[in-house]
């Protein structure tokens, strides 16, 4: 008989003898993983949606008058001095008129009586992707508003602001729920193992007296923790996947989910969640066995 055979048999005995508390722990781990992964899934999708939205982000500076070539160069220099940009495009009053007419398409005849300079000239500024934090954009827009000849700066402030605060809220929820659920799962596993140890105190004492090594006593408990983490995370993630599929099926069409291109975790994230769960549960059992056996 080798070490691993003995260890697996011992772990099997433990599971058989304490299956009710083991089952409760397994449920707790599954639920913890499910809740954490649920918020994390929302968070990653929000971040993805934010990235996609920021691809289209541009600040429009409406000007009092069409700037001449020299002034365009001056303004370009002023803008680039404040922050680096992907592009700066000057749109004259007549360009603005043509664009608008193009956007109206078949209805462009409504503009026939309008003068060609009724729309203001503007500058379209596309900031660098790396400089698109909410505060940076706000600062940038405030600066652009102070440029000579500037009348108004627009970049969908309200939408960006709301989106930014929503993302921040989700981040806090993910961090808090993650921390609480991680602690809950770890303590539950540690507590179950502790109960098992207390219930089998006589046997463990005897094992020490007949010459069982520390590893012989400790490993079955670590194995239980590992199994709890593995099974709990697989079931939790499976439940989330089923929920995700159900939402995708029942909420298709022009809605929030389509807008955000809701996607499930990539394989690397799934593996990381499973490994994280295994690690935490194993740590939970390790601390219990160390504390109670004093071997």
């Amino acid at each position, binding site marked *: *008989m080798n070490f691993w055979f003995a260890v697996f048999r011992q772990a099997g005995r433990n599971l058989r003898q304490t299956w009710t508390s083991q089952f409760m722990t397994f449920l707790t781990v599954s639920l913890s993983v499910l809740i954490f992964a649920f918020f994390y899934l929302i968070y990653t999708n929000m971040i993805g949606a934010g990235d996609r939205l920021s691809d289209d982000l541009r600040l429009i500076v409406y000007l009092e008058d069409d700037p001449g070539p020299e002034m365009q160069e001056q303004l370009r220099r002023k803008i680039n001095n404040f922050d680096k940009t992907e592009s700066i495009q000057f749109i004259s009053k007549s360009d603005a008129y043509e664009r608008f007419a193009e956007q109206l398409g078949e209805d462009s005849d409504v503009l026939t009586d309008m003068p060609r300079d009724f729309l203001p000239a503007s500058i379209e500024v596309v900031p660098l992707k790396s400089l698109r934090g909410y505060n940076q954009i706000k600062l940038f827009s405030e600066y652009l508003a102070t440029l000579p000849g500037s009348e108004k700066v627009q970049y969908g402030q309200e939408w960006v602001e709301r989106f930014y605060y929503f993302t921040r809220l989700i981040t806090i929820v993910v961090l808090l729920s993650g921390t609480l659920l991680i602690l809950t799962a770890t303590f539950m596993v540690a507590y179950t193992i502790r109960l098992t140890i207390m219930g089998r105190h006589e046997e463990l004492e*005897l094992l020490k*007296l*007949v*010459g069982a090594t*520390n590893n012989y006593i400790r490993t079955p408990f670590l194995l239980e923790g590992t199994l709890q983490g593995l099974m709990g995370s697989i079931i939790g993630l499976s439940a989330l996947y089923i929920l995700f599929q159900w939402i995708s099926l029942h909420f298709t069409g022009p809605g929030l989910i389509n807008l955000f291109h809701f996607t499930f975790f990539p394989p690397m994230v799934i593996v990381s969640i499973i490994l994280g769960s295994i690690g935490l549960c194993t740590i939970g059992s390790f601390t219990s066995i160390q504390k109670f056996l004093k071997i």
Partner: protein
Amino acid sequence: MPKIVQNQDPIETKDIPGNTMIEMIKVSRTYAPDIKALSDISFTVDTGELFFLIGRSGAGKTTLLKLICNMDTPSKGLIEVAGHNINNLKGKKLAHLRQKIGVAYQDFKLLSDRTVAENIAISMEVSYKKPRAIRQRVRDLLEQLQLTDKHDALTGDLSRGEQQRIALARSVANSPRLILVDEPTGNLDAATTERVMDLLTRCNKAGATIVIATHDASIYQKGNHRVMELRNGKIHSLSRNSR
């Protein structure tokens, strides 16, 4: 130049007949607040010896056995088993030493929710013996102690006499080099006592050192072996039985 090999198995180091298996020098054990269980105990037990420890209840016999198997630590003094200070051994070395020491405790220490076979097998499982060898050894021991029909019985359902024999079977199952037995015949009739002593004598003839703590005169008055009497935690006498 001779190659130095570190011995991983402490009890095998000096496991040669005539060598000392147990050595105690001025060992005392005091429990709080100031109860002296043992005072200044000094004696040696040779490898392969059958040694009796006698005395009334509370004389200190069980404490002495507990000190030898490192279940308890002395307040003072030195205890060596097979040439190694047992109180300095830790971790794997202590575990390996304990695998070579079989102990039949006075309170049996049986797992009441396990079968007789499982209780006996436990001492062999920790040494990673093969399952077939374990099954065979369990059957042999149960046959020797006339408990074959109890193979699958839960130890919690057995009488005290039967439990005592199971505890003894577990202590000898792993063929230990040192066997410590605490009151092996306390709950047994004369015929069963003889069977138990036969088993222990066979182990002794096979080379095991045996220390038996008892107050049953019928078992230590036969044969040529040393008997140490404890009174109030002190050695009262240490002599060789010549009958």
